[in-house]
């Protein structure tokens, strides 16, 4: 009996030790509030589409990094119309309500971002905490073939 109790105690201890690093478990992030982007008909000049979203980080500093990849070749920020491509630019701001921010390069993390979100979906506290800005330059649109273009932009947040 004493041996069995000893094993049980050891197991309990091991379980407790496995669950002990609470700080690592809390290093979570979440990105919500994203909406699709419709540039419409590009008839001239730069076209900017900015949206506010919720970027949450549970780290002590509420820090995070963001990485964007497009649906173009090698993750390029391009929209496609058959074999034709239309380039766009991606910017990020760690503040809500912005129409410009730091330029993102495909698959390269923008580090050093911090969030004011206090709830993982911004259901309380600030409703949004960051800005995603997409731009199609007039020069790119002017040289593009006529037609309808579409693509997908994927954003990945990581804790810092």
């Amino acid at each position, binding site marked *: 009996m004493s041996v069995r109790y000893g094993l049980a105690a050891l197991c309990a201890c091991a379980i407790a030790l496995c669950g002990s690093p609470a700080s690592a478990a809390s*290093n*979570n*992030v*979440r*990105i*919500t*509030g*994203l*909406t*699709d*982007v*419709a*540039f*419409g*008909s*590009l*008839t*001239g000049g730069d*076209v900017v589409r900015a949206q506010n*979203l919720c970027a*949450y980080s549970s780290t002590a500093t509420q820090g995070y990094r963001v990485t964007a990849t497009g649906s173009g070749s090698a993750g390029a920020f391009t*929209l496609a*119309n058959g074999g*034709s491509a*239309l380039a*766009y630019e991606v910017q990020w701001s760690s503040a809500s309500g912005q129409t410009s921010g730091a330029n993102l390069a495909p698959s390269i993390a923008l580090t050093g971002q911090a969030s004011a979100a206090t709830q*993982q*979906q911004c259901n309380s506290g600030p409703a949004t905490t960051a800005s*995603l800005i*997409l731009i*199609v330059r007039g020069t790119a*649109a*002017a*040289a*593009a*073939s*006529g*037609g*309808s*273009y*579409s*693509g*997908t*932009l*994927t*954003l*990945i*947040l*990581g*804790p810092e």
Partner: protein
Amino acid sequence: MAMLQMKRFGAAGVAALLACSSFAAQAATDGTMGATSQGSVGISASVPSRVQISKLTDVAFARQDPGTAASNAQNVCVFSNTATKGYNIKATGSGSSSAFTLANGSLTVPYTVQWAQTTGQTSGTSLTTNVALTGQTSLATTPGCSSGVATSASLVVQMSTTALQSMQSSTNYTGTLTLLVGPE
């Protein structure tokens, strides 16, 4: 001296706008809570069919020998963003009923207009005023031929000896040729 001033119509003037397409890209997705969180947005845009004619220069036939036909060829840029890079071109003169004529008061003299869809040509397809020449294609890859080929088509303006011999000496005849390009 006979002076012909060119007019060009850019993309804004001749754009055949396609209807803005409805959004058909993937719907946005939010991320879940975790060590990393991934979300995505669908993006859509449409580009209307557009053309542009550029690099036109005025034409001057000065002190022309009436016994020799006059010809002026110039290289121009026509850009078309359609899938085939196709376009049509229509020319109109400043004479009566858009005739290809130069004038000095009541005095008039005719000229002819030719178009070639390649650069460096001294002859091409004869244009009739206000009648589109269809089925043209361009090698231009950017508006204004800012990169790629420098020019893509040839405009040829000619005056016959008959026309030259009908002109009054020491008299300036002037007119305007307007070129309108449309996408195909």
